[in-house]
């Protein structure tokens, strides 16, 4: 097989690409300004639930595509966990072949409409763009362009459904229906397997549905992708808790040859500080699930959620941003982020932090709650915050926050949302004998994403701890290759 570098080179040398490069000098391309994503006005959008970013139109997309200089050594690709052929799809956009662009992306990424919206591009593809590394200029807006191509294809009525391979009649199953599983299922169906996805909840999509809010990722987009998988013949079973409704052993007896565990990192962490169990204090998972999955506050839906004027969210990741922006949309007067480090150390996507600031979210950085105070009914009414300062870098390379003695003060709150991280869901590891896990409770896998039990593969957050959508998808694809290899070897024997 030719190596990737040669492949990129050969593709880059194709006539259409050489032609398009000639239409504008590299130097001139680099002088173009990065386009702005059209977005709803902050003061409008913080009162509704529809998508913040409106998407690029054809003109804007083609304009941005011209900035990409089609590098001989496309470093951007090295930053993408699934190795999308970035310059190739961008050049397709430049020539106006939008469906072609979508097709290029889908060769390696089955959920581009999702990734274009939620990938931390500033840490991945865009961080490795020539503009970022060499020119210290804003990178090509790879994420926006990816989203554009995917949306264009979806709205064109000509969405390409990946072709299922010739049926081999071999049954395989995934546990969980998040992005890792969806990517795995696409490839397994392509390879010709008889694929079933089991999901514990009543809805499909994992965190894409119950976690990430519609103003960032509309549910319809996830549903359409899932429907495409159904068209490919993938079977989905909801309300099925593997390990409970049936064990892996029972599923083996039903003829499943191999399993892909993609059960996510669903266990919320709390800080274990006094008063944390007062009512009005939620984990971000509970808060977002009540609202996103269960429709709390929407007309006719039965699930309640607590509303209030003063809402504090503890944490600085995507989950924290999603929670605080949701609280603002539900009418909070003061929607606060309480984070123990500074904005630089926040793990959230940069765009979300910027959007949150525009929407009037208050950032109380270098603060940490130490205690909650409740009223007579046990409802939280104040949080006690302690100021922090940054010390030496810790193991993660981020400067360690150190409490400032005697700096405690009280802030009124009606609702507190704790978004300080999640642990791997222990349901599967604890229900399968002999499955090796790490001390963090994640499932141990080899390079083929195979666990200590040969017919069980795993990927996504259950292997990585809390990670990203695209890493989960990459795992799903690699696990599919690994599983295919395993099954074929077994048949040979």
């Amino acid at each position, binding site marked *: 097989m030719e190596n990737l570098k040669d492949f990129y080179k050969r593709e880059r040398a194709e006539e259409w690409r050489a032609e398009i490069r000639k239409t504008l000098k590299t130097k001139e391309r680099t002088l173009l300004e990065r386009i702005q994503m059209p977005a709803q006005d902050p003061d409008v959008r913080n009162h509704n639930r529809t998508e913040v970013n409106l998407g690029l139109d054809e003109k804007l997309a083609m304009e941005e595509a011209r900035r990409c200089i089609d590098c001989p050594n496309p470093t951007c690709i090295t930053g993408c966990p699934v190795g999308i052929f970035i310059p190739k799809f961008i050049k397709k956009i430049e020539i106006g072949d939008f469906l072609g662009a979508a097709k290029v992306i889908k060769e390696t990424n089955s959920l581009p409409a999702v990734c274009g919206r939620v990938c931390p591009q500033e840490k991945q593809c865009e961080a490795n763009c020539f503009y970022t590394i060499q020119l210290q200029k804003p990178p090509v807006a790879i994420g926006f362009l990816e989203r554009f191509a995917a949306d264009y294809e979806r709205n064109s009525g000509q969405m390409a459904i990946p072709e299922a391979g010739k049926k081999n009649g071999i049954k395989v199953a995934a546990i969980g229906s998040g992005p890792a599983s969806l990517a795995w299922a696409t490839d397994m169906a392509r390879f010709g397997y008889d694929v079933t996805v089991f999901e*514990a*909840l*009543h809805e499909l999509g994992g965190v894409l549905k119950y976690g990430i809010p519609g103003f960032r990722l509309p549910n319809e987009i996830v549903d359409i992708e899932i429907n495409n998988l159904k068209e490919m013949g993938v079977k989905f079973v*909801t*309300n*099925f*808790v593997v390990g*409970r*409704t*049936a*064990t892996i052993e029972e599923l083996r007896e039903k003829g499943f040859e191999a399993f892909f565990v993609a059960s996510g990192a*669903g*266990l*919320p962490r*709390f800080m*274990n500080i006094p008063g*944390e*169990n*007062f*009512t*009005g204090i*939620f*984990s971000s*998972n*509970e808060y977002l*699930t*009540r609202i996103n999955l*269960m*429709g709390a506050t*929407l007309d*006719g*839906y*039965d*699930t*309640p959620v*607590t509303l209030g004027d003063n809402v504090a969210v503890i944490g600085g990741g995507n989950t924290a941003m999603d929670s605080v922006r949701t609280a603002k949309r539900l009418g909070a007067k003061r929607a606060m982020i309480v984070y123990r480090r500074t904005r630089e150390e926040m793990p959230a996507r940069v765009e979300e932090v910027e959007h949150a600031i525009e929407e009037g979210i208050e950032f109380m950085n270098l603060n940490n709650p130490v205690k909650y105070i409740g009223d007579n*009914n*046990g*409802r939280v009414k104040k949080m006690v915050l302690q100021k922090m300062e940054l010390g030496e870098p810790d193991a993660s390379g981020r400067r360690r926050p150190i409490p400032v003695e005697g700096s405690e003060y009280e802030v009124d709150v009606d609702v507190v949302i704790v978004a300080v991280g999640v642990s791997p*869901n*222990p*349901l599967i590891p604890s229900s399968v004998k002999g499955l090796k896990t790490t001390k963090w409770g994640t499932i141990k896998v080899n390079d083929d994403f195979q666990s200590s039990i040969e017919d069980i593969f795993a990927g996504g957050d259950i292997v990585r701890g809390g990670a990203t959508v695209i890493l989960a998808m990459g795992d799903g694809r690699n696990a599919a290759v690994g599983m295919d290899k395993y099954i074929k070897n077994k048949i040979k024997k």
Partner: protein
Amino acid sequence: MNKIIEKKFFSENVVKLVIESPDIARNRKPGHFVIVKTGKKGERIPLTIAGADPVKGTINLVIQIVGVTSHKIASLEVGDEISDISGPLGKATHIEKVGTVLAAAGGVGTAPLLPIIEAMKKAGNRVVTVLAARNKDLIILEDEVRKHSDEVIIMTDDGSYGKQGLVTHGMEEVIKNEKVDLSIAIGPAIMMKFASLLTKKYDIKTVVSLNTIMVDGTGMCGACRITVGGKTKFVCVDGPEFDAHKVDFDEMLMRLSGFKEQEAAAYKKYIAELS
């Protein structure tokens, strides 16, 4: 899927449903519960599996109507399907021969208690059961309980059936008469709290099955969290059964009232719309 094949009212507000659910029927054990949701806009609520027939592939639920969701589920008729049931969830009851088991149920708590006494009896224990309720109409499943108990004491608040008094009176009577090795109490949180205080006084190991608020039932949200022995536990995955003497019942009672006003308002609106 999830078709209702039998429905029976035990009292005005307590109904038993027998539901087709073969996977759950095969795998459930005493102590397990399911999460039930009805309709697209419905809420997910936990209900104990009060019995099952693995051959027929059915499970029994006993539901007390207290709000919108329990009312909606209790209003379904034979032949209707419940849109979503997931389970069996939670840890199964630890069944073991210990000697004499004092089982106590308050109100609809009899339903979840039933499979446990059945298993305890089968394991060779002497089972003494105290059933308590506000009045005669609310004493449910008496015949079934008698079948799996060596002795049954019935207590009603108003004295309309059995003896007059609270569940704890019945329990104390037993404790004074014979050596009790293990006590199990299931019912409203307040009943479990007092049952627990009583057995603590006599130093009798006690298990309670906690009915906290839940959403997913798989350990994902933390809605069901309570403090046991000073540590936060998730009832849906760490329980629902716990050592009663370590449970912070006051905190649990407080957390149960987390959505009280909203729930009451929603129920009022729902009932008004019905009529």
